[in-house]
């Protein structure tokens, strides 16, 4: 199981379709159709963990999370 952190330079908010990411360093947006399966952390503040709602992410959602890590919009941390 992996934990995902939202880096300081990234903002993320919930939309009807899922999550909307904004990278403050590039001002680029990334739309992720995740519905309500991913719960973003508060807009700002020290708590930066993105969590999956309910059960552990399925294969499709895991691929989305991996893609977000590759784009630098999430940091993957081994769960303690």
């Amino acid at each position, binding site marked *: 199981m992996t934990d995902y952190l939202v880096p300081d330079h990234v*903002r993320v*908010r919930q939309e009807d379709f899922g999550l909307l990411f*904004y990278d*403050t360093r*590039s001002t*680029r947006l990334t739309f992720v159709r995740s519905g309500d399966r991913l719960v973003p952390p508060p807009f*700002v503040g020290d708590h930066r963990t993105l969590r999956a709602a309910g059960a552990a992410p399925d294969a499709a959602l895991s691929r989305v999370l991996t*893609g977000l890590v590759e*784009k630098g919009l999430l940091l993957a941390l081994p769960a303690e």
Partner: protein
Amino acid sequence: MPSRLSDTPPQRLSTSPLRAPVNVTWEITEACNLDCAHCLSAELRAERRGELDFEQCRALLDELARMQVFQVNFGGGEPFLRHDFLDILRYAHRLGITTCVSTNGTVLNDGLVDDLLAIGAEHPAAPVYLQVSLDGAKPETNDAIRGAGTFGRILRGVELLARRQYPDFSLNMVVTRLNAAEVGEFDRLARSYGAKTRLSRFRPSGGGCHTWDDYRLTREQLAELSAFLGDHTEILTGDSFFSLTPDSRRNLGLNMCGAAKMTCAVAPDGSVYPCAFLADPAFLSGNVIGESLWDIFKTSPIFKRFRDLEVASCKGCDRFSICHGGCPAVGYFLTESMGLPDPECLRAVEAGAGGREAAAPTKEGV
């Protein structure tokens, strides 16, 4: 603002409104020390409707933070002429909001740059982007638009930013018939200062209504600009040329008008419009004094009208998916009608319509 779509087809955006704007353009002051011929805010400034006071500004920023608006684009007037602007800027960054300040560059000095660098250092996760307006690569070109002697004054500000190694600034040119031939030279000039190049579209709104016939691009210039932007995908456009740009820029920005969907605009007196280019009485949607911007965004009939707007006559076009009919503001201010195709779209240009030589009716002529 550049945007990149992931996992969601572009057309989904137009049918699924966001809960809040991604960015808000906020004309923070009427004050300005220049009198540019194409000023978007000229008519609003002439009306002298007043400005929000500091507490009202702070309340609006609190609401923008609650709405989770990512970025505020401050304009004016000249924002740095407002005496409490730096306090407003500091407060925005304290709330985690990224900002971009559009300035004419003439009031930049060492002390001001010190302050801006300090805000950026204190809030590295939310940069203060600076966008300096310059309307040509040559003094005579810029000065014909922005006023005598302004080229040198603006470049002194730009040189200061370069010398102080300001990390995030761009030079912005509104592309008109007067300066279109200089876009390449302008790009090289910006690079020489370590700045990004940003090209913006000239629209017949605000003061642009009065200079449209003289400043609008010719068909040939529109075609050349389209090709130039296609060859220079690193150049920023503020998403303003989606009706014109080729496929090479398809994934670089919005593929449709973002008014009332991705963005909205607040005038100095708190009036709210779907977009800064639609700051016209016909589109006045509310005022943040006494009204919630979030409520206006969600419930304004004018905003809903923009979200539902479809340019039906463009649906059969092969570029519809990357243009969606173009900028409604251009069509509106030329014809006083909504839902008509952008007269400067690439297909119109290729077909010999659009551009200066076309017999498009002006607002005065309708």
